[in-house]
């Protein structure tokens, strides 16, 4: 194991997995939520993780940007080991964007300010340049005219799109989406999915935890099904949905589809 994260980071090349997950274990008290998860994500991949509630999907995403520390195993993001006491958490989080089920926009800031905050204060970038980029990002997610609106004045779908723009403003290499449409009204789900699809088509590496099977089938390069903390089955969406092999996958897909 390299002695410093910088060395590890320097050793990484784009032909290696951008996210490498090895035998990850995580317990909350007596409950073991992740019982040895292993898989790779290559740059530009879009992967979807599905599974019943409580199967550890969201926890896994949170482990990738060190919001939740892992107990055992290894996660490397661009070669940077997450399970390392000397991990530069902030450096890791600058490369990994995350969008949440509950949007979590900052309610005391306008849409534009929400997007500008992190680049200005974390990356110390020039305010005017960031402002211009924030306007472009808002336009990209279809909310050009909502720059000065506060989160409370936006619909769920609009808030979620601002949240996506906020993450993108940090120029991340990987985007994590944690059930981003689960808290939305049905009529606003599509606008958010459309935004994610555009991102995926532009080559952004995306890891999605989702219940939107139709969407997963369309955008995913690879599907993962988790049950009780392990990956039960995975494969390209075509095979995965057409011929699930494991009984648990069959049962789950049977319920959902």
């Amino acid at each position, binding site marked *: 194991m390299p002695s410093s994260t910088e060395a590890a980071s320097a050793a990484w090349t784009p032909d290696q997995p951008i996210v490498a997950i090895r035998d990850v274990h995580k317990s909350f008290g007596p409950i073991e939520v992740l019982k040895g998860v292993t898989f790779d994500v290559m740059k530009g991949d879009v992967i979807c993780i599905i599974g019943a509630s409580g199967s550890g999907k969201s926890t896994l995403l*949170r482990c990738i*940007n060190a*919001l939740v520390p892992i107990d055992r195993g290894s996660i490397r993001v661009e070669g940077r080991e997450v399970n390392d006491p000397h991990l530069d*958490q*902030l*450096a890791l*989080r*600058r490369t*990994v*964007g*995350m969008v*949440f089920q*509950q949007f*979590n*926009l*900052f*309610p*005391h800031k306008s849409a534009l300010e929400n997007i500008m*905050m*992190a680049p200005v*204060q*974390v990356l110390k970038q020039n305010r005017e340049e960031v402002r211009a980029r924030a306007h472009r990002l808002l336009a990209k997610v279809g909310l050009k005219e909502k720059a000065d609106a506060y989160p*409370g004045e936006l619909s769920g779908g609009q808030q979620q799109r601002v*949240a996506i723009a*906020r*993450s993108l403003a*940090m120029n991340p290499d990987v985007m994590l989406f944690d059930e981003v449409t689960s808290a939305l009204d049905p009529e606003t789900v599509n606008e958010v999915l459309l935004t994610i699809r555009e991102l995926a088509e532009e080559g952004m590496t995306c890891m999605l935890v989702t219940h939107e099977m139709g969407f997963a089938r369309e955008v995913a390069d690879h599907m993962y099904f988790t049950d009780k903390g392990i990956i039960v089955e995975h494969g390209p969406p075509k095979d995965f949905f057409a011929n699930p092999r494991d009984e648990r996958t069959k049962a789950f897909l049977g319920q959902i589809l």
Partner: protein
Amino acid sequence: MSPDRLRGTTDLPVLLPAAGALAARARTERRIGGPVLRLRAWHGAALALLTVGWTGAVWAQDAATVAERSSALRALWEWLPVLLGGFVFNVAISFMAMGIGTATGTLLGLLQISELRVLRGASWLVTQFFRNAPWLVLLFYCMFLLPFEFTVLGVTIPFPDWVKAVIGLALPVMANVSEIVRGAVQSIPSGQWEAAHSLAFTRRQILWQIILPQCVKRMLPPWMNLYAILTMATVLASVVGVGEVMTLTQRALAAESRPEFLVPFYGFVMLLFFAYCYPIARVTQKLELRYAVKH
């Protein structure tokens, strides 16, 4: 009891109409750690009636018996500048105690959410100690334990009684502000921390840029409530000999030596405090209503 019940969703039909209001009130009281000051206009009206009524009664008695002695109203009028001066002193003491208490209390409250267990524990202990101590006892401690002057680098700084009273009153204010700050910070949904962490903000940035700005609104009503309570507690300083409105009223009554003046004089003092605290209570209520709406 289920957590849902505590949050005010109830299926008990009799509680339904009031459930929302009760829950909102319970939330506020949990946050500030005690009941909210609910001054109503009729409290003032009753006080005024008592003062004026009794004054009238005393005056009528005067007219019937010893007409040459001054009426209660005239006595009150004569003492008015002194009493008002005393009251201004009370307000000044309340300002200073609130200022010191807020500054130190904010710091203490932030220490209560420190990542260091030692700091967290120590600040919790200090907060609990001063929050659960009787205000008058704290005042006595400050009176008798603090020296009457300090000498720093050859310069002697006098420490008069009223300064000690300000410090004595600032201590419980500090402890209560500490709890208000801690409660407000912890009432911000954890998703705000998560989102900010995921954007690579440092803990300090998150606290100052994202969490605390959202807390100000939530802290304002309990803070104003605390101020109103403090203002009324400033009369405690009379017990330790500070020349504020209560002390002066006692002196005035002693000088007049008319037992029947007791009710109008003290009634007048209560009216003064009502006139000062009632608007604060009203504004606090309005703010609570406005901020009760989910952000």
